[in-house]
């Protein structure tokens, strides 16, 4: 794997700000489209990062997405400061949710987010420290064809 970065950019997410929820992901999608990433990867990456962004808005105080693109891969790293996840195994199960009514009114919080991120990514890693925050690494391989 090469460390040579073609593009690196950071995006801030504000926890609890439902009005802006999805803004960072929309910007990321525009960038990926502009630089000519394969459309099937653009859509998978957009869905994954949008779900991840919504999680920060819903559950964390704040978060930062770092978008790194090398010739080999597209890496979306999301680090948040917040309550963290006590039981990642449980959180990864479809349907498991701790969402509030406000979150559900936004059309989210059905317990589909993390499983859907994993489904769309080529590689997905999650680490969390309860009371501190959660880090997601969402990776897409750029040289692979015929994915989906």
């Amino acid at each position, binding site marked *: 794997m090469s460390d040579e970065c073609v593009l690196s950019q950071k995006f801030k997410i504000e926890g609890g700000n439902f009005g802006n929820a*999805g803004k960072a*992901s929309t910007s990321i999608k525009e960038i990926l489209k502009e630089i000519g990433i394969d459309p099937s990867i653009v*859509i998978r990456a957009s*869905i994954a990062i949008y*779900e991840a962004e919504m999680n920060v808005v819903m559950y964390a105080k704040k978060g930062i997405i770092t978008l790194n693109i090398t010739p080999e891969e597209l890496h979306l790293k999301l680090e948040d400061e917040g309550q963290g996840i006590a039981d990642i195994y449980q959180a990864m199960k479809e349907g498991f949710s701790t969402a509030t009514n406000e979150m559900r009114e936004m*059309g989210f919080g059905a317990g589909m*987010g993390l499983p859907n991120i994993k489904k769309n990514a080529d590689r997905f890693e999650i680490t969390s420290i309860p009371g501190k925050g959660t880090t997601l690494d969402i990776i897409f391989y750029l040289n692979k064809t015929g994915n989906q």
Partner: protein
Amino acid sequence: MTLKEIKELLKAEVITGEDSLDEEITFAGGSDLMSDVLAFGKPGILLLTGLSNSQSVRTANIIDAKAIVYVRGKQPDEEGIKLAKEHGIPLLSTKFMMYATCGLLFSHGLPGVSDLS
């Protein structure tokens, strides 16, 4: 089926995107749950939803949906309309409820997203 035919079938009001009514729609999917839309949505989908806040438009944009039809007379909020204009996503609103909206479109030959192979 064109968006214009869908508009007539559903007696829908066009909120934005009047100039995109010639767009061909080939399949649709309905849900109020954006998490589900993100899980089943495919590019080109006609999204039927009762969720009228701006997340419906954000979600539609993320999955490359062709248009949104709000059911049960729902109207998107200002932010949603602004976003839709920005991203060129037509928004329609029909008085029919979700079940009838889906039924009408399906019975007139518009397949669901799950019918795509």
